């Protein structure tokens, strides 16, 4: 199985605050990797590093074996288009309509005519269960949270990416809409054969979509010698893991954190 994305000995700091330490992670083609961990442990940062939206403080990011920082600006843009990114809040452009949002990367990066672009946008919206004549002219502010996520997914899929990155795709959604999004993640993989990377703290999503689960732990709670990746295995294994920190997260138990609350 070929490796699409590889993070090698990544360190990431924002000013004085260390977020990631010695992270080594490989993403295999065609699989769904789910990154879990409590808020602030660096999951979203890891995903942004994978797409080169952030640059690491030290370490290397490789795309199909090539160092990202060796690529020219043009190559970087072209290779980045192989990635689709579903942002946490959708990150739809406020000033553009739903149609213009989904058509954005096609207009920006291809020479397709407007008729073809309209057909592709219609198809992508239909893939996520939306009809263009209903939502096409609406502005993002007029959409519900679930619709915004689905339009974000249609926009990310518009240019046929090889890798889909989902940043907390079910956060803030009701359980039914969360399941709709999980189904869309599965369907996207089945229909297009894309590699998927999902950042989440939703264990239903983990159970449903993951081939492989990686759990990160906040650096502030680790001793200097401890690895930041607490767990790397299958979805079944994560639910049976002996490590109390992993089981605490998987079961959603407060345990000693309650003592921290009373101490504060």
């Amino acid at each position: 199985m070929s490796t699409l994305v590889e993070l090698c000995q990544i360190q990431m700091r924002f000013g004085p605050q260390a977020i990631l330490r010695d992270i080594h992670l490989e993403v295999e083609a065609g699989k769904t990797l789910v990154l879990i961990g409590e808020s602030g442990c660096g999951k979203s940062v890891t995903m942004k590093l994978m797409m080169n939206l952030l640059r690491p403080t030290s370490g290397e990011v490789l795309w199909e074996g090539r160092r990202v920082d060796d690529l020219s600006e043009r190559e970087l843009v072209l290779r980045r288009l192989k990635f689709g990114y579903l942002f946490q809040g959708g990150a739809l452009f406020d000033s553009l309509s739903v149609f213009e949002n989904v058509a954005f990367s096609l207009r920006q990066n291809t020479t397709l005519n407007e008729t073809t672009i309209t057909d592709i946008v219609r198809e992508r919206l239909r893939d996520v269960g939306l009809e263009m004549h209903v939502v096409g002219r609406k502005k993002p502010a007029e959409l519900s949270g679930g619709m915004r996520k689905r339009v974000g997914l249609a926009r990310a899929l518009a240019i046929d990416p090889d890798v889909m990155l989902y940043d907390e795709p079910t956060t803030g959604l009701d359980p039914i809409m969360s399941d709709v999004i999980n189904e869309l993640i599965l369907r996207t993989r089945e229909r297009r054969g894309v590699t998927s990377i999902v950042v989440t703290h939703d264990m239903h999503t983990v159970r449903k979509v993951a081939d492989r689960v990686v759990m990160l732990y906040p650096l502030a709670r680790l001793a200097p010698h401890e690895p930041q990746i607490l767990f790397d295995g299958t979805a079944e294994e994560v639910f049976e893991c002996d490590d109390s920190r992993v089981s605490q997260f998987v079961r959603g138990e407060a345990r000693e954190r309650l003592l921290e609350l009373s101490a504060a």
Partner: protein
Amino acid sequence: MPSAGSATHDRMTFVHNLGKLVLDLFILAGDLTLFTLQMLRWIVPGWPRANVLWPVMYQIGVQSVPVILVTGGFIGMVLAVQAYEQFAMMHMENQLGTVVNVTLLKELGPVLAAVMLAGRVGSSMSAQLGTMRVTEQIDALTALGANPIAYLVVPRFLACFLLIPMLTLFADGIGVLSGWWFSTRVLGVNSFYYWHYSRAFVNAYDLWSGIIKSVFFGASISLISCHRGFHSRAGAEGVGQAATEAFVYSFIVILALDFLLGFFLMELFNVLFPKLVII
């Protein structure tokens, strides 16, 4: 009574804060320079499409016209009111047009048009880009193959840079008319002499020096506002602060540039037209 230790601590805090302020200023200036160079690098390859540039130009140029006209109109009348008393004491009321029009074209027209633009457009640009930053829309642009500097900053820079001379001309024009109207109709200055002395003392260089200044003001407003927006902190407070900083920094830079360019253009005038210097 404060102890000696406390006084030493206070001094250390003052020195520490002063040092931090100076360092922060250098970091800001360096970062803004890099931001400007990045924008200049993208200005040709990232020349915006008409459907991106026109809405920005409409928002920055056309929608600013009413506020510029109102500002210009009042400046002309205020100048007439303030100068009239002084001129009347020396029985020089008929020469009121000279001071009103020179001040308007060289100084107050361009400066106040720029300040209004910084307040109306600069803060709004900064808040808009700041919101895009915190809602990850700027990351989304990168993810979708667009360069955020080329897509967001270049059109705003071009719109400010190209349209501020026109806005300044509007402010100048309405200011000249309102100054004349108030001087002749309310203060009783003779209209013929008002224009006669204005023509004698106001030259094209005065108008051009105002226009040249305005171009620098427009460029500064767009770059400072976009820079603050791009570096906005998260949350409503962060975006609000970015908008405030955009206006405050733009205002300070407008005043500093007005002084430096005013001095430079005066020296240039003396070099270009030495015979016209009145001793």
